[in-house]
């Protein structure tokens, strides 16, 4: 009698060669099929990326010319590019200090009691659809006083703050504890050690998070559409308190008109926007790797 009373034919003969026995061949087949599906899913995602990027590059390249890049409406897109840079720069100037301060609050002051609620606020803020933020700023600032680039910047800043705060917090948590303790042990005031030791050590991460939030803000369309969509784009508008022509709204508006020439312009703008965003993403990644290496030393 076997321990489990199985009939002899099901039994394991340990001296058999170590090739699959019993149902193992079938199980291996199932496993291989699933693994193949997982590989296919990953390749599928990459394929979609390649197809989209290829469409943008191949169509967009036809639009790009010196005149396209340097002149205004109707032959070029320079005012839109400058405008987007302007709106995003102002948004980032507002969002970065707030985001970094929230991260400092979380890592240095919040303690057990306040970490969860503040993080929850950041999560909710991060999860808010940008169209809601657009509607909010519209109700607060645009409904009665009209559009401006600056107001769009405020909306974009609301989108950027949680991204910067989260990214900064992650690197702040990486700052080696012994550096803090060393400063504490020497009786250095908290604010001095934060400003002179902790923040500089986290600077690489802060810049990384900021670059990523810039990349995100540059492509955001809903806020600029509701808050800053009336500029025509024939000249560069440097005054942030006027309506500022910008790339995402222009692409959106062109896609709503059934005009082949407009489509070409939209592809060209898409190519420029994607190139900028990918460049920002790649440089932030490179920076992140560098600063991680630095921190781990």
């Amino acid at each position, binding site marked *: 009698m076997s321990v489990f009373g199985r009939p002899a034919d099901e039994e394991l003969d340990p001296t058999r060669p170590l090739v699959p026995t019993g149902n193992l061949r079938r199980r291996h087949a199932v496993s291989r099929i699933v693994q193949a599906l997982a590989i296919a899913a990953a390749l599928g995602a990459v394929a979609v990326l390649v197809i989209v990027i290829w469409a943008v590059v191949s169509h967009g390249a036809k639009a790009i010319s010196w005149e396209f890049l340097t002149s205004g409406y109707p032959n070029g897109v320079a005012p839109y590019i400058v405008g987007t840079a302007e709106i995003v720069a102002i948004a980032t100037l507002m969002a970065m200090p707030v985001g970094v301060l929230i991260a400092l609050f979380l890592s240095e002051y919040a303690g057990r009691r306040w970490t969860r609620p503040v993080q929850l*606020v950041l999560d909710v803020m991060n999860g808010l659809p940008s169209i809601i933020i657009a509607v909010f700023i519209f109700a607060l600032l645009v409904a009665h006083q009209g559009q401006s680039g600056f107001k769009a910047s405020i909306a974009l800043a609301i989108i950027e703050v949680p991204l910067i*705060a989260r990214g900064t917090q992650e690197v702040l948590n990486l700052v080696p504890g012994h550096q803090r303790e060393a400063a504490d042990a020497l009786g250095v005031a908290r604010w001095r050690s934060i400003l002179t030791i902790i923040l500089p050590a986290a600077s690489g991460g802060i810049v990384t998070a900021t670059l990523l939030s810039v990349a995100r803000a540059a492509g955001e369309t809903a806020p600029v559409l509701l808050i800053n969509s009336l500029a025509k784009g024939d000249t560069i508008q440097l005054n942030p308190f006027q309506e500022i022509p910008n790339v995402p709204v222009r692409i959106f508006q062109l896609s709503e008109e059934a005009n082949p020439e407009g489509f070409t312009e939209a592809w060209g703008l898409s190519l420029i926007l994607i190139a900028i965003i990918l460049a920002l993403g790649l440089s932030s990644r490179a920076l992140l790797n560098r600063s991680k290496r630095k921190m781990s030393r």
Partner: protein
Amino acid sequence: MSATPPAGTASLKLARSNRQSPARKRADRFGDLALFLVCAAAALLALLVIVLIAKEVIEGAQPAISKFGLSFVTNTEWAPPLEKFGGEGVILGTLITSAMALAIGAPVAISIGIFLALLAPASVRNVISPLVEMLAAIPSVILGFWGLLILGPVLVSTIEPFLHSTFGFIPLFGEPQTTGNSVFNAGLILTIMVIPIIASVSRDLFMAVPRELQDGAAALGSTRWEVIRGVVLPSTVSGMTAACLLGLGRALGEAIAVAQVIGGATESHLSLFRPGGTMASLIALQFNSAVSQLHTSSLYYLAALLLVIGIASNLLASWIGQRFGGAGGVMR
């Protein structure tokens, strides 16, 4: 370390200067308090913004709420010139497109997470992971434009007729239309948007599953898939649920790309291949051109509903993460 002064010497220098004057001590007390207050103020500001958002959106929706009440949700007619505003069509559209995005996107994304975390060698992972994240970085307006000009024609000429002839007995797969602007197109674009979100979260979840748990399963003579199905997936259910909620929130709230490809209709119907609308996309399409105060207010009403759903799904995701899992949502 060009930007960073060596920590040790910096603190030493500070300490030496610190011991000196009582004035310095007073300055330090003030500095500590000031920095704390500034940081706390920033955190409060974030909370304040959320409260303000809720207040402004609900205030804006007030006229529509008092006129239509909750029947707004079930009224099917959206006719601005007639001052009739019912949200059922776009609410249904929102549900259908988001459900489609999640139904296709979640399994694909989780498979990608499995591949990246558990199957691919590190060298492959380090190439594919950034590419998947790159997909998330494509601005929605560009994805929508691509969906409008490239994906739509393909759908309407080949895929939609095929699905209709095969599954036409299901109301979802109705008669294809003349353009590719359809609920189906919007659902696919949203699928592309949620995949990288769910994939990168699940990749991190799977990588956090303790090695010894997987070894324990492997030591029982299990195949790779049995280890994944038996141990890795069950111990990350809560994290994956939270990731899917995150993706759902993204799909529900996406306005621009959907507005570009869905066709901008407002009537209530179940056919995937007809034009439709979602709450967010209707706001994007009609907000600037609203014909009356009630029209604007009805759009605010939709925004308020979106806000409630958005916050609820966020809180739920966060609650699931906290209740059922440790830091990363990995249950052990």
